[in-house]
């Protein structure tokens, strides 16, 4: 898979790398492949998680910060069927809620809809010809917010309910909540997958080093018996693990980059505000680049630790 450098000893050029045939082990290419795949998936999963978060943020904030408070013409207070409240009563309750809400810091404006406006809204359901005076009319307040946050929504709902217990908030966007929930679940899954991948890579490297230690136990023991210092042996394994991980990471990151560009090409020209491009912020970029660096560091340390522990067991 990779060009194997000639590590043959006996050439007096000081380039001696290994006394142990680590780089000739059959499993090396395989481990590189595994690390590449893990890095590939981790980068994709992490990116997906970032993109999902950005998407969720934009969806919940970027859409028009509008909502409607409805004060129904029925009060559910006393009986099951509810008591019809007089139109005047509804109007005064509505007025009261609007007054109260206007002072909330997140509220830009809160306008009570006039009867004709309400009729416009209702006519599709009731028909043009029904006279407004004949039916119990709900009160409607059109609210414009600075930003939509769950806290604001809760505060507004509570304020409205304090005055009219049957008051309802309508964000026009229940489907958005569904979507946000879905995005959240996906984000969670992506993070879990990243973690699992990280743990697996760690285990894989530790396992590979341990297995190489086992395969070359006789040779390591021989070096030890000849008076080689622990460092002399450890550094060979360490360098080996580092090389493998580095190769794997480079391949993995490159692969992930290509796939991300591909996905970007396929979905990128949507142009809509709803789906953000697969463009990541600088912070995310740094996080993604720290991934391989961390992987290399961890695997070098893992190798060192594993080998030292085996050496400590030798007399």
């Amino acid at each position, binding site marked *: 898979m990779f060009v194997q450098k000639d590590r043959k000893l006996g050439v007096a050029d000081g380039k001696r790398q290994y*006394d142990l045939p680590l780089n000739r082990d059959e499993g090396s290419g395989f481990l590189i492949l595994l690390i590449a795949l893990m890095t590939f998936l981790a980068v994709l999963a992490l990116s997906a998680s970032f993109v999902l978060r950005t998407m969720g943020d934009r969806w919940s904030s970027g859409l028009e910060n509008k909502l409607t408070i409805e004060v129904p013409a029925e009060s559910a207070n006393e009986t099951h069927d509810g008591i019809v409240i007089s139109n005047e009563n509804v109007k005064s309750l509505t007025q009261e809620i609007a007054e109260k809400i206007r002072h909330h810091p997140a509220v830009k404006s809160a306008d009570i809809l006039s009867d004709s406006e309400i009729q416009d809204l209702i006519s599709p359901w009731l028909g043009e010809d029904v006279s407004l005076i004949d039916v119990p009319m709900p009160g409607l307040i059109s609210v414009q917010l600075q930003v939509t946050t769950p806290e604001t929504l809760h505060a507004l709902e509570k304020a409205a309910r304090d005055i009219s217990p049957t008051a309802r908030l309508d964000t026009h966007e229940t489907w958005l909540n569904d979507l946000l929930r879905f995005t959240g679940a996906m984000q969670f899954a992506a993070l879990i997958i990243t973690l699992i991948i990280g743990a697996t890579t760690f285990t894989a490297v530790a396992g590979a080093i341990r297995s190489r230690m086992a395969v070359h136990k006789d040779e390591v023991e021989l070096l030890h018996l000849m008076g080689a210092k622990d460092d002399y042996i450890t550094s060979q394994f360490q360098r080996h693990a580092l090389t493998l991980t580095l190769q794997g990471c480079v391949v993995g990151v490159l692969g992930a980059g290509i796939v991300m560009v591909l996905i970007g090409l396929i979905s990128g020209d949507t142009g809509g505000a709803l789906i953000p491009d697969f463009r990541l912020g600088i912070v995310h970029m740094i996080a993604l680049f720290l991934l391989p660096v961390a992987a290399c560091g961890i695997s070098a340390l893992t190798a060192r630790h594993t080998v030292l522990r085996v050496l400590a067991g030798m007399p």
Partner: protein
Amino acid sequence: MIKFENVGLRYGIGPEVLSDISFALEPGSFHFLTGPSGAGKTSLMNLIYLGRRPTRGLVTMFGQSINDLDRRKLTPIRQRIGVVFQDFRLMNHLSTFDNVALPLRILGRPETEIQNNVNELLEWVGLGGKTNVLPPTMSGGEQQRIAIARAVIARPRLLLADEPTGNLDDDIGFRLMNLFDQLNRMGTTIVIATHNQAVIDKLGHPRMVLEGGRLNIESTAQKNWIQKKIQGVF
């Protein structure tokens, strides 16, 4: 130089393979170690080259008691010992040259010195034309000679050889015994485990005999009578 006092060794929960071994090797001495197959010769060598710690007893090497010595302190002691293993233990992926050069590299010697010394020694043991060959493609006797060359290349102060001529014909066998003798004259302490009666008789050094886990040292005088008798024959 090396002193064993009441040393015992058992593997795991098995019986004691070696019991109450006591002896002292003077600097510059030369001993043969004999005994029937399975008597514990390799095990005793293992204790001497610090491949194992004894189950009991005191071991003193180069004036240091190794019983409660720190792991790291053993490294310089090991660097002063050369070993020819019964099963050679060559590095199969390294060339003849690199196998023999290994002890020098561990000591951090300069590459030019390594180059000269190794090539000279390989020539001497009859492997001059095989410096770049890998051990698995060599004959049993050739591998044994690499093992011997590796053990002596760094001029160890103590040389242990376990059945070093088992795969060699008598000619090259005696030649290598002469190498050991030469090293011995330059001050190296030597212990050779062997079944080869011809070699023991010819060189006539004192024998350490292992039998039933116990060690007896037979003086040279004892052997001289037999040796003379044999030499008289030819």
